[in-house]
């Protein structure tokens, strides 16, 4: 969906669901996901539908992800950090799971 305009910026290594993703200094978590072509970051609590970053300015709460073990963080407001562990979220609770 997106390409990087310039290859400037220091590389920052993060993982998303355990897989390495090459982010850049200056990326937020949500931007790093978009740049890496990860097409959704969570599923919804009601129907389990996939969602992806939508507004990138802290308003819509679609980019909620788990960052370093803390759930439901707004990915668009958090700058990436070397070694950061990002996990996509499963919203819908299923009986007996």
């Amino acid at each position, binding site marked *: *969906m*997106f*390409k*990087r*305009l*310039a290859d*400037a*910026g220091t590389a920052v290594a993060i993982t998303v669901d355990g897989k390495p993703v090459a982010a*850049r200094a*200056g*990326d*937020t978590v949500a*931007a790093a996901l*978009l*740049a890496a072509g990860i*097409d*959704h970051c969570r599923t*919804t609590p*009601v*129907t389990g*539908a*996939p*969602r*992806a*970053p*939508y*507004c*990138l*300015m*802290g*308003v*819509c*709460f*679609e980019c*909620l992800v788990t960052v370093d073990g*803390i759930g*439901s963080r707004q990915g*668009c*407001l958090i*700058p990436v950090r070397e070694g950061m562990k990002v996990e996509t979220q499963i919203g819908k609770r299923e009986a007996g799971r």
Partner: protein
Amino acid sequence: MMAASDLAPSYDLVVIGGGPAGLAAASLAARAGVSTVLFDENPGVGGQIYRAIATTPVADRSILGEDYWAGAALASEAKASGALIVNGATVWSLDPQKIVGVSIAGKARMIEAKRVIIATGSQERPFPIPGWTLPGVMTAGGAQTALKAQGLVPSGRTVMAGNGPLLWLLAAQTLRAGGRIDAILDTTPWRNWLQALVHLPDFALSPYFAKGLALLREVKAKVPVHRVDRVEAVGKEKLGEVVFASGGRERRLPADLLLLHQGVVPNVNLANAAGAAHVWNDRQLCFVPVLDADFGSSVPGIAVAGDGAGIAGGTAAAERGRIAAIAAVRALRADTTLPDTQAIRQKLQREEMGRAFLDWLNRPAESFRQPEGETLACRCEEVTAQQVRDMARIGCEGPNQMKAFLRCGMGPCQGRLCGLTVTELIAAERKMTPAEVGYYRLRPPVKPITLAELASLPISEAERKAVER
């Protein structure tokens, strides 16, 4: 980086939001010798319009344009002013006693303020079309943020839909940056010209006139523009195609990215939760705070400056911030020498001149504001337009009751992406005006915080004794 524990327990002035209004307000107050702190939740100052102004990787200045780079002066002025500027600071509470709840890096503090200026700006108006929750559908503002802050440009099959200055600006910036736009779907209703035309002479005198025409020419020379009255995002797990129609003739375009925009509206959450009175603005189709000439709200000591006071754009926002700051300083220290507000008000008036034309021309069509059927009104709780309409029809009178019936507005976004839609749907079904229906009553915390953050608040001996056995 600043930690929550480094904050003083009180400040003369707390400014919330680091866009043009907040930066201008904080610099002016700090220069006048008032102890000032500015809280902003983003990684850097600039707000949305000057997003990442100090760090953008977009080096070629012609891509974002000179209006963007004008923000650099405002940011450096604020930095040099002596105001304490704290980024990554989320304000989640403000009450009429002017106690500000703020979290920084997972630690919370309650800060006392003598005066508060809310400069939380605007957000994009909800654009509830079928499929607007699919991955691959984003706001134009979101794409612009990715361009400014990270140098990301659309590279797949991209369609933009909606209306308003930001849509055309983003299109021009994307093209200059070598990004891809397959088509622009212009949703401006023809009949808007009827109300807009009388305001054209004023707009022709405003600085936005020549800029606007140049932008339209630049974009239309390179991208096919279709006038449409219906837009749908279609796909299973993500966007596959955009369906659009004009006068019943339907067309489909395969797409990876659909960027939506139909103007911006004040981000009212913090002011509403602080108890500030709001009124419906029928021209801008949104709620705006009730303000005096100095942008003071109905809550004494709390002002709302910038686009949060009603949409007028970035340059006007800075002037509004200055006026609000002058009033704050005057209230705190009557003997301070301050800039002449008359000159600032004149500048502001010039900036606001073309607004009526832009507002009337870009007023989104009813069909794009009042969805039907299975289209989601509330994205968070997945409440459909039909559900809201049905509840209104059987007697649900207002947005607050609607929360209890359907949970709309009760998800993490706290009504930001459904509030106006729900108000308008209730009004439509019950044959009332949005003013009569009103808006959600919002309550703190206006941004989610963890129990650990609350537990990190300092506790006094008296507070401890009150609950200890």
